[in-house]
């Protein structure tokens, strides 16, 4: 069993009458790349701010590295963060900005600064003042800061905002590599679902402060993948027939009336014929398959993009 890095139970945040996060129960395990997916104002940043102590909770509790929320201060050095926009001192250079935080963290080996800058391809801008950086460079500096001091948990809020496609691809590779080689745990939010899909192994869908679904990558693949949907009046009998008559084991009973078959070795027509012959009423039989965006829309029940 992997170590739990973050566990929240009933974690809530209210601003007067507005509920930004309602009773969130999540578990992030060591080595996870945990994706937060939701529309603007869904509660992703609020969740990140609660965990990092930038805002106070209204209810519930959480544990970070097995420390209770009232006692997480000792774990702060194990976290690297980029929450909302990257914030640095305008008049300082890239290097000086990172050195300022390195000194705060008590880092004695300043080579770590160069390593962090190399990781995000920012060495050439080392002596540039922060105010003179492009949006993408500022974003990369924010990510470099998050990786300073070899954190165990990296929390990144919209980390690829303002990056060009090559920069996004490079960062994706960096995140995956760090996760693979150093077992760094990531919590990442992004509007670009396809990017999250390429690196994350677990997904949390949030809408209007509520957790809609927490799902693993395998489960998500299964939910989104091409399949044959059968709607019958007797799912129990249908499932038994699929196994006994058609030898299909790769299927999932979704609810009382719906079964999804992921095994395409037998044609939909043959399945239909076998089930009808054995006295089952089929109300619908069709093929389906959805994109991550479509899946997200189906979860939140809206038509707007994430």
């Amino acid at each position, binding site marked *: 069993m992997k170590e739990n890095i973050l566990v929240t139970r009933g974690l809530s945040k209210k601003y007067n009458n507005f509920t930004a996060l309602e009773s969130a129960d999540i578990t992030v395990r060591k080595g996870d790349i945990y994706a937060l997916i939701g529309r603007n104002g869904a509660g992703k940043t609020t969740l990140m701010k609660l965990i990092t*102590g*930038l805002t*106070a909770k209204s209810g519930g509790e959480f544990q970070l590295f097995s420390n209770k929320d009232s006692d997480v201060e000792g774990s*702060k*050095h194990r976290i690297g963060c980029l*929450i909302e926009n990257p914030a640095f001192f305008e008049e300082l250079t890239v290097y000086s900005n990172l*050195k300022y*935080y390195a*000194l705060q963290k008590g880092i004695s080996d300043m080579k770590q600064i160069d390593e962090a800058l190399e990781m995000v391809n920012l060495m050439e801008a080392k002596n540039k003042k922060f105010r003179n950086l492009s949006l993408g460079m500022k974003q990369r500096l924010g990510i470099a800061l998050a990786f300073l001091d070899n954190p165990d948990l990296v929390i990144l809020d919209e980390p690829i905002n303002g990056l060009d496609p090559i920069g996004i691809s490079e960062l994706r590779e960096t995140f995956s590599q760090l996760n693979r080689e150093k077992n760094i745990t990531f919590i990442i939010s992004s509007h670009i679902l396809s990017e999250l899909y390429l690196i994350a192994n677990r997904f949390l869908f949030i809408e209007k402060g509520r957790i809609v679904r927490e799902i693993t990558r395998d489960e998500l693949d299964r939910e989104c993948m091409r399949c044959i949907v059968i709607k019958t009046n007797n799912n129990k009998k249908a499932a038994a027939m699929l196994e006994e008559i058609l030898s299909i084991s790769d299927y999932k009973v979704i609810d009382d009336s719906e079964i999804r078959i992921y095994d395409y070795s037998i044609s939909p027509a043959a399945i239909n014929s076998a089930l009808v012959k054995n006295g089952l009423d089929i109300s619908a039989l069709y093929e389906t398959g959805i994109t991550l965006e479509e899946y997200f829309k189906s979860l939140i029940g809206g038509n707007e993009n994430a």
Partner: protein
Amino acid sequence: MLNLVRADLFRIVRSKSIYLIFLVMIVMAVLSAALKCPGVIGKSNISTNDDLNKISEEIEEPDNVKEIFEMINNNKSDEAKKKLPLEVIGSNMNLYYLIVFIVYAVLTADFSNKCIKNTLSSVTNRKMYFVSKMAVIFGIAILLIFMNTFVFFGINYILNGTRYSCSLLTALKATAVQLPLLLGLTSVLILIVYMTRSGVLYNSIAIAGVLLFQLIITLTYEITKLKIFDTFMRNYEIQEALYKLAYAPEQKHTIICTIAGLGMILASSLIGYNVFKRSEIK
């Protein structure tokens, strides 16, 4: 906490503002020594006002400011001339405006650049942050206050010799008794930062607000001529209180000012920390 202080000092020595603050302090010291009279920002110093009124009755058309100050100095006794450093230290309310910028450079910049979220999310807790910032601000403010005395003392000695100088120890004592009140003011500025969490609002309240307060209180005194205002203005209005502490110290006044300064530090710190503890970091 030491790491936070080290980081702040690293950043401060790389910003132009800190050099500008000390440059202004040196210019003020040079001007005061050259004119043999302290400069005063904001509400006019009462004793200087009295001297000026007296002189303006004696001369019909003063050619320039230097002539006025020379006449003021010529009217002074030798003993009064030796008190010039104490007069300058008495006008240390001038340093308030420089301390406003120290607080801005060390603390307000964290809020206006939103850099505070980096520190609080992955370095330390709010309590440690609060204490370390206060330590850095107080440290630089104390350095500024004492450097002001040393710099003026040195320049005055070079330009005016011993005729216009008291002993360095007397000057340092006069500076030291002002510390609680000046640090009290500094802690109020820190409180304003935590209350507003905005550079613009901080500047408005810290600079314009104080000038407005001085204007209102002076006008009220001028219009009403109430004795209570007179007593307040001559003893406990901060600029006057600082002047008296340095130039004509009385034990009772010193004790009241020390208690008031320490009270301001304590109250501002308690309120400031409690506000900060509950505030949302954006």
